[in-house]
């Protein structure tokens, strides 16, 4: 019985890993090789020549950078903006708080895809099409992050806040010295989810960008792929180059990423 489990487990792991291995191996094959059997995919001759061609001959590396840049800026700003709003909702006793809370909560029901057509018109009116700013500012409002972070802030005891107030600290100090440091796992969790969301955001760049210098990967990769028809080497080089940076990040931050996702499940 134990062996049955083991075999199933190994097969499952293979199903998940083999496509990635295939991508990697095909990317280092020599172009124009004939593949007639299953194992031909994995045999030499290998060559890195196509990597050079793609790196110097296309804008791919620029797009990798754009994707990281946009996702990075969106992540930092989204979490900061959401944390500020969550702090006000959680710990500042202002009037109309309930109304404000429901106003933001209602945003959970509005899927971004449902507002994308009018968003195009709005961004056009504001001259935000075809710009980094247009990619970034349109992505910053995350009611989900506000609501989740408010939940975590609510758990911070008021005594801590009062002790800072006794020392003459104002709201900014409380925010920076107590709220943010004490909820670091939650902030990291929101940051990871935001980053992955932005990393994969396809629809909005697809609609709003025409300048290929600004493309992010989800948008740029298809424009390259449509030019390659001879074999799979170039496409797989594109795929591999696009994935290596994020895989390295994953290897470094795996524990935090896994933790961050688990945490989002507990609060959700």
């Amino acid at each position, binding site marked *: 019985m134990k062996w049955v489990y083991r075999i199933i487990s190994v097969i499952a792991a293979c199903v998940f890993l083999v496509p990635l291995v295939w991508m990697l191996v095909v990317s280092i094959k020599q172009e124009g090789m004939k593949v007639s059997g299953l194992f031909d995919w994995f045999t030499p001759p290998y060559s890195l020549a196509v990597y050079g061609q793609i790196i110097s001959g296309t804008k791919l590396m620029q797009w990798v950078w754009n994707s990281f840049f946009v996702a990075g800026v969106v992540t930092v700003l989204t979490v900061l903006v*959401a944390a500020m709003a969550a702090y006000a909702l959680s710990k500042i006793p*202002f009037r109309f708080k309930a109304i404000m809370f429901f106003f933001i909560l209602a945003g959970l029901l509005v*899927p971004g895809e449902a507002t994308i057509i*009018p968003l195009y018109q709005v961004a056009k009116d504001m001259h935000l099409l075809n710009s980094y700013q247009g990619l970034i*500012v349109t992505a910053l409002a995350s009611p989900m992050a506000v609501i989740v972070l408010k939940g975590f802030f609510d758990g911070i005891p008021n005594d801590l806040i009062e002790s800072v107030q006794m020392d003459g600290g104002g709201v900014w100090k409380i925010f920076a010295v107590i709220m943010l440091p004490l909820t670091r796992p939650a902030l990291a969790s929101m940051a990871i989810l935001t980053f992955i969301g932005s990393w994969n955001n396809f629809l909005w760049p697809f609609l709003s960008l025409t300048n290929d210098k600004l493309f992010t990967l989800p948008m740029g990769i*298809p424009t390259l792929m449509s030019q390659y028809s001879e074999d799979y080497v170039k496409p797989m080089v594109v795929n591999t180059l696009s994935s290596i940076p994020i895989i390295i990040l994953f290897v470094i931050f795996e524990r935090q990423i896994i933790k961050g996702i688990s945490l989002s499940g507990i609060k959700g």
Partner: protein
Amino acid sequence: MKKLRIDLQALIFLLPFLIVYVLFTIWPMIKGAQMSFYKWTLIRKMKYVGWDNFQRMFHDDQFWAAVWHSTIFVFLTTPTMIVLAIALALIANRKSKLQKLYRSAFFLPSILSVSVASYLGLFMFQPYTGFINGILHGLGILAEGKEIFWLTEPSLAWIAVAALTLWWTVGFNFILYLSAMQEIPDEIYEAASLDGAAKGQMFWRITLPMMNSITRMILMLQIIASYKVFMQIYIITGGGPLDSTRPIIQYIYQSGFKKNDLGYAATMSYMLFAILLVLSIIQYIVNNRKEAA
């Protein structure tokens, strides 16, 4: 005076969020309502048409076909996603030397960019030169000289898209289940095994019920996310063969940007919003009733 000062403080903290929220979520909602009553092109507002766009939508077979396709995708991927995520979590939760490797392996595809995953799928499912048919030939499942045309046969195209989606996105749900399993106290299992419960019984009587709330959450999020599917299908099948896999978002996009009819596209966006809203409300009611009971 003090009250005003506190209100002002709160406002300062809320302001950055409110600005982006109102400009890029609330205002487009309102704008969309306006646009759906106009003939509106990519260049400019043309003319007021009243309820024409809505009437057209209700009689537009292509729109309802697209709604149906998205629904097929929801039914195809949601239950399989949950079963697969639980199965993978069971594998990664067993004590073994490879435990960590399993966890990384099941999650790794989730970090790929949507286009990388989609093109990987597109190339793997090609006939003659694709990897999947190659494996089937190699294992002797597919006879020599025969090919499966994954992407040109509607029902097979659905399977290909669903399989790719599961492979690419199951990682998140897998992690949620895995951490839920690890939170179940060992004492419960120990007590059960003292009472002579078999492993299988423990899974159905303890593990699964203890993860109920996470299952409900995943179910809800998965249904809504699946209704919004676009990119994988767009790359892998292009909505074909003959529009037989075209989802709602793709039809909205094509109406707006290829047929230059933003007004109609905005109308259909509202319909999508309404569908998702109804689903959320049903879900909310069902959940609350269960918790009350």
